[in-house]
């Protein structure tokens, strides 16, 4: 293979690390959940039962789009967030 062709994959640098799904999941989840919190805070929201479903939704949406490999087959964190999500919705509605 010619050396000049190698440049196409050598030049990936730090951005290339984002092609690792784990890194991408952490970064996108941070941006999404922190963004939602800032948005809700800017709207003057003061109920924690509104913030919690937003965090849970951010997690579900992100893990649905970026299917990174996990240590365990069962998503315990997802299950816990689902319970929190349901309880928060129930608390908000009631």
């Amino acid at each position, binding site marked *: *293979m010619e050396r000049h*062709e*190698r440049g*196409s*994959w*050598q*030049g*990936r*640098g730090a951005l*290339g690390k984002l*092609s*690792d799904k*784990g890194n991408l*999941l*952490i970064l996108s*989840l*941070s941006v999404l*959940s*922190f963004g939602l*919190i800032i948005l*809700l*805070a800017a709207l003057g*929201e*003061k*109920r*924690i039962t509104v*913030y*919690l479903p*937003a*965090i849970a939704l*951010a*997690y579900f949406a992100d*893990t649905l789009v970026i299917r*990174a*490999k*996990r*240590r*365990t087959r069962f*998503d*315990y*964190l997802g299950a816990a*967030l689902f319970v929190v999500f349901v309880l928060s919705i129930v608390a908000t509605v009631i």
Partner: protein
Amino acid sequence: VGRYALLGIDLVGLGLMITFVSYAIRPFVPFAALGIAISVVGLTTLSLPEPSKRNDFEIAVLKGSVLGIEPLLEEIYKKRSSEEMVEQIPEGNKVVLFKSWGFQENHPVAIYLPSGGQKAAVYIPLDDNSPPNLDNVRHAPTRLLSPGKRQEGIRVFTAGSYLGLVPDIRKEGASVEDILRQVLVETTKLCSSVKALEMEDNIVVEMIHDQVWTMEDTEVDEMIHDHLWSGPEAHRILLGSVPTSMAASIVAAAKSSPVTIEKEEISPTRTVAHFVLWNGTSAGVGRGGVLWGN
């Protein structure tokens, strides 16, 4: 402690602290939510497996095993190379290898055999007059006979010969793609990702190797690229590139069926290999028997 574990623990600790302070000591709901979000990110980080580092020792051992059979392959290549066996067609920045079968169009270059409880061999036909059948293939000699003696083919043992003996390879419910990923991505780190598509007797495997090459590790990268990805010439021509050869061994072991490489497309970041399962007769797999038909 790995990188993800350390980051995860730090984030969970920070998140809990912020939540506690902003909920119990100085109540401020958005900050408490921020703390919870940081904890969630931390727990997500903890749930990720540590990114595996490429093990240069494994690579060196693999390289050695590839080079070990190269002299034999060169001899076989010379014996067969009275006519062009493999057509190399440059397509943009990739090379497509069509195994269009040397001296007779319907003969394969190599047949990857399943292990059958022993180390698995690859059969390379030397004689174009008789199409290979399973008995000949299984009992073919493992060395080149003296020039006066008739020899239909030879069995060689490749880097993937022992893969079929690993119990996990025939694990219940494991797909070919899972096994390929385990060997090529997680163990040898020859690829960053692998996809496999099965269509009856045909299996197409896409191997992405964009993450293998990094700025930091140029010398090792060159070693891997020059000697493993493309492989020495005779290896590449007779058995395919090293990852493709290993993938063929894995497919043969997982499917318990002989396998041939129909086509291999190699580009700097991606290799696509087309495999055909052989059903055990001399006439008939894939493409209506084009490869094997008489």
